[in-house]
């Protein structure tokens, strides 16, 4: 595939070039939280905890660390909520805080493969049997193959560089648009698209045996 087909239209669609704003209810909650209303802040946490936790999980690689990182992100968001600019979505802002915190954590620690070991299904407690024994009983060989394919997918995603893991998590797991991801990662939309394309290209090579 060495010759590109020239298409008469740009790849980026006009509706995706506009960056999203902050919903009115979130602006209200953020203002109330800035005035010290913790119930209002709790509403914001409830609304965004899944996406923040999900991103942290893909970045730091373990459930416990992801929970701690997500919690720290929300605490930092609260302590600096007076600086929150309501022209951007609260979700993107807190995702950016979480992302920066996770990147700091990754820089500080030695490279580990926590997510890889979790994806392999390695039991953290010695002496406790892991799952494969019951797989045949539950769904037969197909279930085992499915399970292995899923594990390989998790392993492949975990082995990607952090920036690629981020875009995979935000696009494919949290179903965010290019514009939302660009806002959250504070990079141009073109960069998001490039990272996503490269990430999928790497995944295609790593998962070739599971693809048609």
């Amino acid at each position: 595939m060495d010759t590109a087909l020239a298409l008469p239209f740009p790849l980026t669609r006009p509706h995706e070039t506009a960056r999203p704003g902050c919903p009115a209810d979130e602006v209200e909650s953020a203002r109330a939280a800035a005035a010290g209303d913790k119930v209002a802040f709790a509403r914001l946490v409830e609304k965004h905890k899944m996406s923040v936790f999900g991103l942290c999980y893909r970045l730091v690689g373990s459930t416990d660390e992801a929970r701690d990182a997500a919690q720290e992100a929300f605490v930092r968001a609260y302590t600096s909520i007076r600086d929150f600019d309501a022209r951007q979505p609260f979700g993107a802002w807190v995702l950016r805080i979480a992302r920066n915190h996770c990147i700091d954590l990754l820089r500080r620690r030695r490279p580990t493969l926590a997510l890889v070991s979790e994806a392999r299904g390695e039991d953290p407690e010695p002496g406790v049997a892991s799952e494969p024994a019951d797989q045949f009983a539950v769904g037969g060989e197909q279930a085992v193959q499915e399970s292995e394919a899923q594990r390989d997918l998790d392993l492949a995603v975990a082995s990607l560089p952090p920036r690629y893991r981020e875009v995979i998590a935000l696009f494919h797991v949290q179903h965010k648009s290019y514009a939302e991801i660009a806002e959250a990662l504070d990079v141009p939309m073109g960069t998001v698209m490039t990272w996503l394309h490269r990430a999928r290209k790497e995944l295609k090579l790593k998962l070739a045996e599971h693809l048609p």
Partner: protein
Amino acid sequence: MSAHLHLTEEQIQGLADGTLRGPEGMAAREHVDSCEECSAEMSMYGALVQRLTTLQDPIIPADFTTSVLEAVEHREHALTQHRHTLLAAIPAGLVGVFAILGWALSAAPTAHVDGFLEMWTVGRHVVSAAAPVLEAARLPLGLGAFVFSAAILCILIRALRPAAAAAHASP
């Protein structure tokens, strides 16, 4: 649109994940339908995108929001303590400096001023004139510094006591 030209990998990925739409998407789709190579590539990326949609994050703990609010309370408290400590430390430091200077100058004021202000006789005269006052004020100055330091110490203890209590209370 000729079949011997191929779509780029980005275009195929855009088709596979549904972000390549409109006339551009239709043109790309027509090409894929008529080109075996692009069609194979498209199947591969389609399967990959399908697989990626099965990725799942672990379940977040049910008490997550509560723990965030507790951490927020704790952080606010720590910040307040930090602010109080700083506010108390600044005057305490000033009092310390003031007491040391006062004490040193009141012990032998002219000797110190001679050393520092040799060239300025006017300054020396002023300090010489003030020397009896400083000497007379030596005891009240020392007492005043002691009382002020004690007051600052009390403020510091009051500021730090809740933090110590919180540290004992937490598991």
